[in-house]
């Protein structure tokens, strides 16, 4: 076993205070400067819904919303989220009611193993709220291509997104996704 007391303090002993809003709740936590948002969510805050599939921005499983925009939480230092609104898959359902995108993923069987699914849904909700992205299948597929599904459930994912669009209506979708 090691004896840390013999060594001088190291930068990673220090933590930085982080004030941010997580799934609508104000939170204040202490994080290491080199702690990545994804790891803080999964290991420190117990929010395992956000997945690690590559840790380098290459798969999209870690997608969360930061101030309403879809981002790869694996490439974001936690401390960079100071004052920001972070939404994870755990924040999609409201009062025990599945978000329409979640409900349509269920109905359309838009997943298999479920591991990329939270990231797919976070991208989907952001996409539905973003009027800059085209609404046809080809535009949706291009905009969703940052989310790899190795099980290959792409067809059903696009179906679930388009079904959600039809249900939400454009304005409603923007409100939901921005939350």
């Amino acid at each position, binding site marked *: *076993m*090691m004896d*840390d007391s013999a*060594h001088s303090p*190291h930068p*990673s*002993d220090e933590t930085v205070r982080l004030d941010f809003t997580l799934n609508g709740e104000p939170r204040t936590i202490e994080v*290491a400067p080199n*702690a990545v948002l994804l*790891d803080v969510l*999964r*290991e420190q805050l117990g*929010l*395992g*819904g*956000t*997945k*690690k*599939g*590559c*840790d*380098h921005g*290459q*798969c999209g*499983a870690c997608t969360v919303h930061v101030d309403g925009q879809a981002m790869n939480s694996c490439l974001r230092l936690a401390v960079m989220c100071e004052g920001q609104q972070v939404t*994870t*898959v*755990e924040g999609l*359902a409201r009062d025990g009611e*599945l978000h329409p995108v*979640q409900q349509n*993923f*269920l*109905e359309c*069987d838009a*997943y*298999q*193993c*479920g*591991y*990329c*699914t*939270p990231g797919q*849904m976070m991208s989907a909700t952001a996409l539905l709220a973003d009027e800059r992205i085209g609404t046809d299948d080809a535009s*949706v*597929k*291009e905009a969703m*291509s*940052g*989310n*790899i*599904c*190795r*099980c*290959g*459930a*792409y*067809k*059903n*994912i696009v179906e679930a997104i388009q079904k959600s669009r039809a249900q939400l209506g454009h304005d409603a979708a923007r409100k939901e996704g921005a939350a």
Partner: protein
Amino acid sequence: MNDMTQPDFDKPRVVGQRTPRIDGEFKLTGRAGYTGELHVDGMLYGYPVPATIANGVLESLDLDAARAMPGVVDIFHHGHFEALHRSPNSMAHGDMVNEVRLPFEDERIYYHGQYVALVVAETFEQARAAAQRVVARYREERGAVVGLLQTDAEGTLQESAGSSRGDPEAAFGGAEVKVDSTYHIAAESHLQMEMHATLAEWRDAGKRLVVHESTQGVFFQRNAMARVFGLAQENLEVISHYIGSGFGNKLFMWPHSVATAVAARMTGRPVKVVLPRQQDMTGGGNRPASRQRIRLGADRSGKLTSVIHDSTTETSLVHQYVDTCGSATPSFYACDNVSTSQRVLEVNHGTPCPMRAPGEVSGIFALETAMDELAVELGMDPVELRLKNNAEQDPASGLPWSSKHLDECLTSAARRFGWEQRNPAIGSMRDGDEIIGYGMASCTWSAGRQPCEARVELRADGSLFAACGTQDIGTGTYTIVAQAVAELTGAELSRIEVKLGETSLPAGPLSGGSMATATVLPAVAAAARDALDALKEVAVGSGGAFEGSDADSLSAQAGGLTDGKRRVSFEEILGTSKLSSVNGQGSAAPGSERSEYAFRSFGAHFVEVRIDPEISRVRVARVVSSIDIGRAINPPTARNQVEGGIVMGVGMGLLEKLDYDPRDARLINANVADYIVPTHADAPEIDVELLDYPDFKHNEFGGRGVGEIGLTGVAPAISNALYHATGKRHRDLPITIEALLASS
């Protein structure tokens, strides 16, 4: 068995009906606990240090800097590890492993990414930071075997993996029409979304080991760990509730699991290890590269007279893995003269392992491309050629098929695809800048079945509980188990709780080989029947809801028992008799039918490719498939398996390739950006039809399993379509832009 509870499986109520996944809400809300996100009190984090060479010796490890890092608890390596035993590695005894070599067993380096140390620290960040400070010094040696496709070496013949009937060499020699071609397929990565992960915890003063593992086989891992640690199986528990898929590389245990368990024992605290993606790809399994030669002989009418299929695949230096490419070939076509042979070559790679449709998917690429070549030689429509050689019984065993409808798959998919609009002339179909190619191939996968046990409880609170020690890797096993229980008891699906993925449950099978459905459901049905029988005895007994009736006169209906006049719910029957529950045990195993029939699924894929030759761009635009898997227990999840297989087939055909450095065998694209798999934008328009011919000779539910077959046949259908578009025959996978440019 009680006939009164036998459901009418010709007209099932729940089985065969669209059923949203019962575990869906957990996956969709983030509450499904995959191994990597589990926490237990006092848990430490492990981070392996991978070898940066592929061939040589680890000369020294300088751990001082790493030890000085904050939070570091211990660092394990060859000089600081427990003495352990190897697993016997037996399929029959359920202790097969993916790599028999134990972690840190010696200081020789056999492949890039092999673990040389495991750093354990208080937090993930600390473990990773310290792992990067470990300084390993190697003596690298020349002569690394870079890969099968980079050498002319023949490999070692595997006598038991070959087969022969008739006189194929003579028949080929005398054939009127011949094809003799060689095919190469690059090594592939499973690239399952969830990396390998282990959480190990010793309990009861180190006497008992509890392991959470992302695995396709909790029992295999338990048995192997018991051998490795010299523990009684009863003192080991392996748990895997949610698995971020596996595609075969999580069937059997890898060294990281052993290292994690040792770290937990030696630190006296639980330890979690999630492999970084690079290590998952270097040391966590791959589909080995293959080199195959196919010789086909036929008469002028297109009747096959000879099939000779010779294959070589890679294995590692620390574990023998044989990826038998020819295993489907003897059963594929009616032909009197067929032989297959298999060789393996040891290379300096991480150990290969089964990957979705192992062996056969590679073999079928070669065989079905060769069949297209034969059709061209004969001037015959490729669908016609396949129909002409359709095997009415299994030519390998001589047994009748339990159920086979390949001919209907071929004709139905051809019709839906619009095959009759295909102009067979090369490059004759155009649309703007693009040339359109139509191609097709048949597909197949064996229909196996294993012994299995299960348990079903009927509870006084009105709920039902079903348990089996198999896993749901994303195929939908949780849901079909609930469907089976609902079918037998008439209970609502929402009342049925299913537990899988624990070795404390009745012994269940691997989630692999497309066998789980046919294996698990009959055992669950037997357990449900046993539970219903127990409940009937209660009901007709003293003070029971049907006191004095004949148990055989009762039957299950809508979550209750009925005597034909009145129905009493399960909970009321149990309540009346002051019981909390009744418990049913069930087991099922394949029987004499296995020697009376041959079991195999077949299907057909039709593919439209579009190639823009002036910019060397090829895309798969459309895939139409018809697959015969017996009865689909849950049609949407079954279809999803085939659709996913098709997407993976697009990757195999056009994109996927592990790149080993030609000088030193280091894997240089061990990440998700440089190892390219299909994205949303690559997914073609897909139309999958599942024929509905229940195969009751296979099992009482009539389902044959569907995990692998969708992948087989896709890549050859793509290469055949490209031939139609360009006239260039692609025999090497993946078909890259370089290959397209070379053909223009």
